[in-house]
């Protein structure tokens, strides 16, 4: 097992609203190791995006961090001042979002943007050298060199996402957080992008936290998978064991309710109910109202995350 790049300890994030406090992330602990793709999966409202934003301290007010620590490169990110955080973003921890259009300056050509990014974080590099690096990068991304001088609106969604990855690469980011990177892309473009990501990840030993609700994408790309529900981490395992034999009933239900195009006979299991109200969550285990295996204890006490088997964690009383 390689070294840890990011360690999250007992992180909680709150959103105060006028009807109560929404605990979007509830006491989550995770470690991301160098060179791995950690898939963070869950439905909307489970807290996965919030967690991603919290790492880079990009929470939109009124969201605020309510506890815990995030350790990166031996520093607790939550204790850094704004300037230090700014230097960290992009250069060490990079983030790509669902809609790349909003991340690229519409008035700046792509080439200029990349060159500027490179030179901001590596001021000793000359203009020519930066341009050469940019051209090489674009090429590696599978984008034709003549597109380099285009403006963002002239590129398609897929190409813009590639540029975003390219920027992260250009800066040799230690960690890339990808929040729903393919959700807005067409199916074939999505596949192309995933291929690119796989290739780049292998070649440059990238460390990626992949946040998505798309189970297929998780299965395609992840080495390990963390499943979140209602702000809590409910299961964490390597991708193969997780899919072959999910421990947590929510994971099981989720995997069974997703249509699988490669299967001959597809019987979707229906999960009753819907994700809980985070302002007044159910007592005990938040999944118990929907759980087919709920026991009395589940309605009362919240199960902690435990290492049920080596390398497999789950928060469920079934494994006590």
């Amino acid at each position, binding site marked *: 097992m390689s070294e840890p790049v990011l360690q999250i300890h007992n992180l909680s994030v709150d959103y105060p609203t006028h009807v109560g406090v929404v605990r979007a992330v509830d006491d989550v602990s995770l470690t991301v190791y160098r060179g791995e793709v950690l898939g963070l999966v869950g*439905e*909307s409202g489970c807290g996965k995006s919030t967690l991603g934003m919290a790492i880079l301290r990009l929470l939109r007010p009124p969201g605020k961090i309510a506890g815990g620590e995030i350790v990166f490169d031996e520093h607790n990110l939550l204790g850094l001042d704004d300037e230090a955080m700014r230097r960290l973003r992009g250069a060490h921890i990079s983030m790509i979002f669902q809609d790349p259009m909003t991340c690229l300056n519409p008035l700046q050509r792509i080439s200029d943007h990349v060159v500027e990014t490179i030179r901001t974080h590596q001021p000793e590099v000359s203009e020519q050298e930066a341009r050469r690096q940019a051209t090489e990068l674009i090429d590696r991304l599978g984008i034709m060199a003549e597109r380099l001088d285009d403006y963002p609106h002239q590129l*398609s969604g*897929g*190409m813009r996402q590639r540029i975003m990855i390219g920027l992260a690469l250009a800066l040799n980011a230690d960690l890339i957080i990808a929040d729903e990177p393919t959700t807005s892309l*067409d*199916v*074939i*473009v*999505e*596949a*192309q992008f*995933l*291929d690119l990501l796989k290739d780049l990840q292998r070649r440059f030993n990238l460390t990626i936290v992949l946040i998505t*609700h*798309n*189970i*297929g*994408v*998780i*299965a*395609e790309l*992840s080495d390990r998978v963390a499943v979140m529900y209602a702000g809590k981490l409910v299961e964490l395992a390597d*991708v*193969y064991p997780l*899919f072959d034999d999910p421990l947590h009933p929510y994971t099981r*239900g*989720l*995997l069974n*309710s*997703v*249509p*699988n*195009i*490669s299967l001959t006979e*597809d019987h*979707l*299991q*229906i*999960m*009753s109910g*819907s*994700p809980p109200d985070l302002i007044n969550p159910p007592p005990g285990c938040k999944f118990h109202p929907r759980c087919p295996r709920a026991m009395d204890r589940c309605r009362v006490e919240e199960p902690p995350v435990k290492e049920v088997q080596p390398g497999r964690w789950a928060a469920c009383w079934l494994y006590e």
Partner: protein
Amino acid sequence: MTEQNLVEVRGLKKWFPVQKGFIERLVTRQRQFVHAVDGVDFEIRCGEVFGLAGESGSGKTTTGRLILRLVEPTEGSITFDDVDLAALSDEEMRRMRQRMQAIFQDPFASMNPRMKCGDAIGHSLEIFDVAKGEEKRRQVLEMMKHVGLTPAYILYDKYPHQLSGGQRQRAVIARALMLHPDLIVADEPIAMADVSVRALLLELMLQLKQEFNLTYLFITHDLATAKYICDRIAIMYLGLICEVGTLEQVYRNPQHPYTQALLAAVPVPDPHARRTAPMPKGEIPSPITPPPGCRFHPRCPFAEQVCSQEPPLLRPVPGDEEHLVACHLV
């Protein structure tokens, strides 16, 4: 209406004029069009779930709106239960709408924010003088219970922003069913629902189809979902149908290279089934100037000379009358 076709579409085209700047218009003196739908033929049989699948720019959503005559076709004919829709006057078409209803992609955006849920669902009853007042309320409550929108008498008075996503989804389904239509055009009906709720909604739709004797036109970009619910499916690319057939035929034996690529591209929720086949290069070209000949030829790994010259016609696959493909190589 047993083995007939409920809907027949022939040569359907819809071209949207491109808005150009004033100066540009003066200088180029040319009108450009987005070829959203460019000559489409198909039938929807009574009682089936007919899928229309494709990526963005394929024209599937526009086709759905054309069938409902929410936009006027540039060319072509649409026949609904042997009635030529284009020949109807505005008022006649309006009354025809009792028999064909729509479920749109975004339930939040498709509900009037200033109308109570119950009123929104039951509005069609008022529009066509079927029921009003207490009777309307009674019928709406019953339909709400039917689609699982409970407790109905409480949710009736709520506004869309007070409902959860799943509830809104059910509300728009209930709204479409109030007049017991024959055809429902569902445009990505579950795309915006939570993953764990989608299966439930699909089940609901199938159940309602049985109960109310419905026919669905199911428009989607998600081939995995389509496989679960459709009986027959047509794959669209850049305004044209490239393949159509039953589920078995299209999924088990895809003939068109685009269909093959599409099926291969869908991420499978199983790490053992990770994709190894390469994807076609490039992206969907602009629908303003589609490629000549076969529209897919610039990206097709099997393209030949003829593909860039002549557009292929939709023809049956040898040995399988029902399975049609538009490809020179078949």
